[in-house]
Structures are given as C-alpha cells and as structure tokens.
C-alpha cells in the first residue's frame, strides 16, 4: 500500500527595511553584538513599540503579488514564551487577524504546474541570538536581531513531495526578491523555512505532523523532508504512533531529531497587544503600493509567450529570477522581438551552461545582454553561422572584444556568402576528393556530407552551410 506525503511550509522572510519593525534601530547585518539594540529592543521598562510604515508596505506588496486579501484591519498579538533572546518575554506577532489572508503561488516542475494555496502571511518581530559556546558555563546574548521585521508566510498543507516543497520554496524565494521585500540571503538567515511533514494512507485524515525547523538551504530542505518521511513511515509500520514534535535537521548525519515536544498553541497564551492599536490599510494605500509594483513573473510569462513566441516552459525559466528576466528583456530589446526565441535559446543554452559551470549568477555574466543581442543579430542577418557564433560567444566570454562585430572583424570570421568564392572552393574540394565524388555517384549519401565537411573546413567554417549544400548539390547533379 502506498503512502501520501503531506507538507506545509512556514517561511520567515526578513523584510528589506532600514530600521526595525517597532523601533528606530538599524537592521544592518554584521554589526558588533548589541550595538543595534536600543531601549525598545532590549525591553527596558516603560518603552513602547511604534510600527514601521515600510514593513507594512512590504506586507501589502506581498499580498498583492500572491493575489491575497489585504486585511483592512489587522491586529498585533503577544506570543508569550520565555527565552533569554526574547527580552520582553513575548514576541509581537499577529494571530487571529493577520495582514495578508489567502492567496497562493503557482509552482512548476518541468512541464507540470501546480497551485500552492497560502493560509496567511503576518508581520512579526525576530528574536535575538543566543551563543551557547565558550562563556564559562553561561550563554551569550546578542540582541541586534531582536525586532528585525519579518513576514511569516504560511501555506496550506498542499505539497505532496519534497521536490514540490523545494519548488514552492524556490518560487517564493524568487518572488520576494522580485518585488524587493527581502534580499533572499539564506546564509545570513534572511529567508528561512520550517516544514510541517506528515504521512497518511491516501484518503485517510491527516496524520500527526512533525515540524522541521530552520531549513536554510534548498538542498537541506529536500534531504530533511526525505529523511523525515522515511522515519515516519518506519515508525508507523512498526506500530508506533507519531507524536507531534519540533525536529532539527543535522546536515552532517542527514538525520532529523526531536528538539522538544511541541507545545500547543494555547501555551503561547496569545492575546492582543495593548501597546499597539489595530493596523488599518485603506484601499487608497493599497492602490498606491500596487502602482509601484514591478510587472509580476506570471504576467511577464504570459507577455513573453505573446510578444516573443516563447513556450510556457521557456517563459517560466526566463522569469525564474528578476535578474534573469531583466537580462532577457534587455537582450530582446536590442535584438528585436523577431529574435525573441533565438535570444531565449542562447540564454537558456550556451549562456546558462557557461554560468553554471562557473557557478555564476546571470547578473554577473561577463557577456552583457547587449553583447549577446549583438551576436544574435549577426546570426539572424547571416553574417556568421551558428557554429562561428559559438566561437564569437567564447571570445566575448573571454573579453577578446567589446562586441560581436568587433570580434568578427578582428578575427576575420565573417561568413562567405559570395557564391563565386564558394564555387571556387567547392571546385577545389571536388578535385581533391574524387573518391568521395565517385562514392556519392554510386549512391552513398554519406559521401555528400563528407564533401560538405571538406568545403566548410577549407573556409575555416566561414561559408554559409546552406549555400555550400545547395551549390554542391547543383554541381554533383549537373
């Protein structure tokens, strides 16, 4: 009998503001411990939180981008628990009425598309950091991160495999960077995921879930979920019930292990924070934020298909990140809409392969979009063949010239299209390769290709291959 895997994700995206969500401290990364922790952040008596407008703008942007309802009125709540890196003894979050409600994200695996529904996204503050090592039996507390604005984005339990969970996380990661609300830096903890995982027999009610905390890479997410699923199935098969728990993934062993038995929501004793009034977001404010949003990936995909004749698959690849989309748009603007498909092919083929090999992002590509467009224009107008274009690409990558034109000129790569010149070369080739000519006349098709090859070689690949074909056929037929 088969098992069904059920996964829901909670993601904490650190918002790209300058100051904290409830105070005027900086949130810049990498500062000395506690120099960015003021009286509000360290919870001195008598301080009051004041909400950062920009954090709300980020939440509105996100809500618009995922087609959610932006709550006209949302409430901040206190989530109570005791830990030294949470100096107030509670985290300000949102509970019953979050700022973003519903919505969802289309994800793609190969040709398959799926819609992952979001439950909610709410604003909250981050906690500080505890350092457990090397303080003669004590823990060290750094409160720089305390009060950093977060948007916690919660999905419905819609995903059915680790691959789907990763596809969703990647799509979300791209989206928050696309709309400029989060820098997406996973090493620095700006984008971290928790995965709620359970298994069940198809058609049965949901199984008991365990929550894998703080997955800070897509690879770890896949490994952790795969391990957790197998562990849960083994437990059930061996007759043990799954107990709700929070688990951590250990990248060294590839295993998940329980951290503490999960306390139920009542234990956080949520209640509305009397220090903060209801957050009201009017239609006017939403419209203003909407007008400042960039074109979203979904809309851009549809436009690429219509304007440049791309397939849905190509359009999805080219909008996988803002940097990729920017590159494509810049290249196609220079090369012209008629070359839209060729530009897509070069970016997804030659360029992507080269970037991958060098572990580079498209934003850091040594070949600019305009340079690539220039190259494609020379293919389109028959100045060079596809094969020669690969040489020019190589030369551009190595910085041997400022443009395709310059390299073609410098290295004498211009395609020979003068039929007189090509005919002369073909005559020489035919004379030198009598054996192949006879074989062809005897019916060996392969001999023809050998002759084309010889002619191309004689021109150092610069002859137009189609023209060589045509002329050769004419001569051999005649």
């Amino acid at each position, binding site marked *: 009998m088969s098992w069904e895997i059920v996964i829901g994700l909670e993601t904490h995206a650190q918002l790209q*503001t300058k*100051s904290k969500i409830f105070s005027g401290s900086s949130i810049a990364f990498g500062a000395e411990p506690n120099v960015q922790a003021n*009286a509000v952040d*360290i919870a001195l008596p008598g301080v009051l939180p004041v909400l950062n407008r920009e954090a709300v703008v980020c939440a509105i942007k996100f809500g618009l981008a995922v087609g959610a309802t932006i709550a006209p009125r949302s409430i901040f709540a206190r989530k109570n628990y005791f830990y030294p890196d949470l100096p107030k003894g509670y985290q300000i979050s949102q509970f019953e009425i979050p700022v973003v409600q519903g919505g969802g994200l289309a994800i793609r695996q190969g040709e398959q598309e799926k819609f992952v529904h979001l439950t909610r996204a709410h604003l909250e503050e981050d906690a500080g950091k505890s350092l457990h090592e090397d*303080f003669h*039996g004590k823990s*060290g507390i750094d409160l720089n991160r305390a009060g950093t604005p977060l948007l916690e984005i919660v999905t419905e339990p819609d995903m059915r495999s680790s691959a789907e969970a990763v596809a969703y996380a990647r799509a979300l990661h791209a989206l928050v960077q696309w709309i400029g609300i989060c820098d997406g830096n996973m090493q620095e903890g700006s984008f971290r995921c928790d995965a709620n995982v359970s298994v069940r027999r198809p058609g049965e009610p949901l199984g008991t879930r365990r929550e894998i905390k703080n997955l800070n890479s897509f690879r770890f997410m896949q490994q952790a979920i795969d391990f957790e699923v197998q562990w849960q199935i083994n437990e059930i098969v061996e007759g043990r019930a799954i107990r709700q728990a929070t688990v951590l993934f250990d990248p060294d062993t590839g295993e998940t292990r329980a951290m503490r038995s999960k306390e139920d929501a009542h234990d956080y004793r949520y209640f509305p924070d009397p220090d903060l009034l209801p*957050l009201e977001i009017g239609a006017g404010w939403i419209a203003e934020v909407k007008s400042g949003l960039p074109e979203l990936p979904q809309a851009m995909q549809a436009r690429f298909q219509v304007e440049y004749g791309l397939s849905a698959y190509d359009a999805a690849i080219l909008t996988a990140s803002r940097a990729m989309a920017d590159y494509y748009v810049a290249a196609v603007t220079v090369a012209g809409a008629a070359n839209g498909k060729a530009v897509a092919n070069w970016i997804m083929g030659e360029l992507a392969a080269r970037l991958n090999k060098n572990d580079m992002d498209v934003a850091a590509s040594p070949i600019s979009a305009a340079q690539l467009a220039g190259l494609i224009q020379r293919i389109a107008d028959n100045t060079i063949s596809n094969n020669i274009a690969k040489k020019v690409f190589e030369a551009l990558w190595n910085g041997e010239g400022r443009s395709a034109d310059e390299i073609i000129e410098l290295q004498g790569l211009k395609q020979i299209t003068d039929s007189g010149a090509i005919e002369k070369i073909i005559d020489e080739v035919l004379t030198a390769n009598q054996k192949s000519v006879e074989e062809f006349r005897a019916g060996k098709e392969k001999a023809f290709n050998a002759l084309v090859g010889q002619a191309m070689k004689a021109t150092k690949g610069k002859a137009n291959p189609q023209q060589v074909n045509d002329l050769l056929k004419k001569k051999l037929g005649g």
Partner: protein
Amino acid sequence: MSLTPEDVSRIALLSRIELSAAERESTRGQLNGILGFIEQLQAVDTAGIEPMAHAVDVVQRLRPDVVTESDRRADFQAVAPETEAGLYLVPKVIE
C-alpha cells in the same frame, strides 16, 4: 469550570513561577475566582457584536522607516549583571 491543582502547576510552569504547596492552593482559589468573573461575562449575549482588540477606537500610528537610534551599548551594559565581548551573559540555555 474550576482549576485542579495540576492545572495550577502547569500554568505556574509556563509562567516560570515557582509555587509552594500552600501558594498553589491560595493561587488556585484566586484563579478560580477570576474564572468565576469570566463566567459571568460569558453569560452576556454578544451575538452580532464585533470583537474589539483595543479599548479605544483609534488606529495605529506609523513611523517612517528611518534609523533614529545610535549605539548605547555601553550605557545599557553598565547596568547589566554580566557581560562579555559585547554580549549579555545569562545562565546556560540549551535545548
């Protein structure tokens, strides 16, 4: 509804408050008294009334996203029980 001694112990644990057996009994009496008030409140018919999050009918004021605070670590740490290398030191906490 009334709380058992076990309920009170659990609440005390969650609140990180240590109670003696005698304190637990007196606290139980007080908490049960509070729950009695709440029962009276719950008897009121609130159908059709929108729950409120705050006693005053005012909305949240927002702050522009500007860094206004400078480093005051030295002042704050001067009154902290123990610090080292810029960190506040606390009894060891580890899961």
